């Protein structure tokens, strides 16, 4: 399946946010849900199982100057095998303009056995934009070894590189489960917080969660490994 979804938000001039475009295609459907305090809240609703290998899903998000958007999803997405040799792809492209805020807080991505999945996010932030961006990856369903999955995140802040990371797991990623990468943890993820109004804090580590101030902007990356999805979520909810 191929699908393109698009979300465009603008400040409505009265302290709120209007969704001037909200368009989805099965299996990538967008639903506006009740909103609090000027933030437009949107849920991603999976209109089919998957993604299945061969699916090509794209989501474009634009948050205009001064607008605020929060995106959730109603359930974890489970990358599943499909046609032999095919890859499933979920590409998210987000542009957050000056004074705007985007919170991207979807449910987990589960890499099921035999999957071949690429999750690719590209985010462009203006100099005083605010971002919360959470990615959580579960390596296999219960008791199962995952197929191949790559979670690639590329964030630019004020035209400069802020974060580039590409986490690969599965049979084609040498050593991914070993002590240099995940150390056998089936769940891993990160939360990127870009907030020009917050002072930089020094790095800390608590157990398998690290808080890492980034070099390229007013940003902190929380990175974690965990024994399960629930613990991971606790780690990535500061």
């Amino acid at each position: 399946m191929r699908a393109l979804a698009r979300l465009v938000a603008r400040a409505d001039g009265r302290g709120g946010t209007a969704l001037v475009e909200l368009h989805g295609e099965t299996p990538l459907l967008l639903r506006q849900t009740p909103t609090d305090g000027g933030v437009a809240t949107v849920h991603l609703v999976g209109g089919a199982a998957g993604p299945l290998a061969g699916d090509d899903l794209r989501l474009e998000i634009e948050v205009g100057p001064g607008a605020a958007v929060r995106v959730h999803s109603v359930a974890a997405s489970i990358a599943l095998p499909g046609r032999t040799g095919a890859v499933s792809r979920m590409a998210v492209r987000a542009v957050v303009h000056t004074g705007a805020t985007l919170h991207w807080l979807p449910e987990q991505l589960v890499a099921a056995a035999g999957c071949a999945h690429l999750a690719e996010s590209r985010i462009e932030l203006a100099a005083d934009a605010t971002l919360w961006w959470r990615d959580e990856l579960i390596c296999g369903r219960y008791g199962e070894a995952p197929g191949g999955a790559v979670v690639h995140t590329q964030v630019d802040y004020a035209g400069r590189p802020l974060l580039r990371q590409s986490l690969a797991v599965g049979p084609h990623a040498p050593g991914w489960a070993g002590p240099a990468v995940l150390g056998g943890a089936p769940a891993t993820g990160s939360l990127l917080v870009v907030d020009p109004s917050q002072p930089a804090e020094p790095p800390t580590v608590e157990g398998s969660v690290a808080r890492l101030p980034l070099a390229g902007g007013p940003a902190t990356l929380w990175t974690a490994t965990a024994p399960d999805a629930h613990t991971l979520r606790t780690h990535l909810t500061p």
Partner: protein
Amino acid sequence: MATPSLLLLLADGRFPAGAHAHSGGLEAAVAAGRVTDLASLEAFLAGRLATAGLVGAAFAAAAHRAAVAETVGSAHPARSARPSDPPAGSAGRSAALARLDAELDARTAAPALRAVSRRQGRALLRAGRTIWPDARFADLPQKPGGAHQPLVLGLLCAAAGLSRVETATIAAYGTLTGAASAGVRLLGLDPYQVQALLVGLADACDGTAADAARAADDPPERLPAAAAPLADIHAEIHATWEVRLFAS
């Protein structure tokens, strides 16, 4: 064709750039109980090669590419310039290296790892300035902590006349051998068995170097960004220790 001796010299752990003082994250992984024996050391090395090894080798190769940019036309008369070719000359090299510096920062989330990379870059640069005084080290970005190690390595290898693939090979090989010899010291492993393990990883090392050298033709934002959550976590834990055997 480069002089084989110079390749060996730059890849040698005895090259005076302080590589022996670093365990490549192994010391913290051992303390965490994650690396305990030969098998877990092998898994550590394989994971490190595929992540930090690939990224470091790609950036060394990209810095090498920037260093030799002005000679591309003459070295390959049949090949016309591509849009992604770095501009020639000192200003072009400075701009290309500054961009690589920022891109490598963006791939190094842990402040401790950024500091280690710059500290190793400084040490390598001290050696390089004495050995190849004519090299273009002045084009490196002037950062308080020093330039990232892979960037310095790329310039050093270019000055030594090594090829891009050789540069990437030295970088990838260094990520393996540093941690492997640290493993002998930290775990008291049999050095023969650890060498056998390195022999087993030689093909993977060559493959990583070849991938890295190829990737260096891509625009900087598309260079490899292979991440390893535990490398970041281990590095920040290690940085807080008061007593340690290795600097990283």
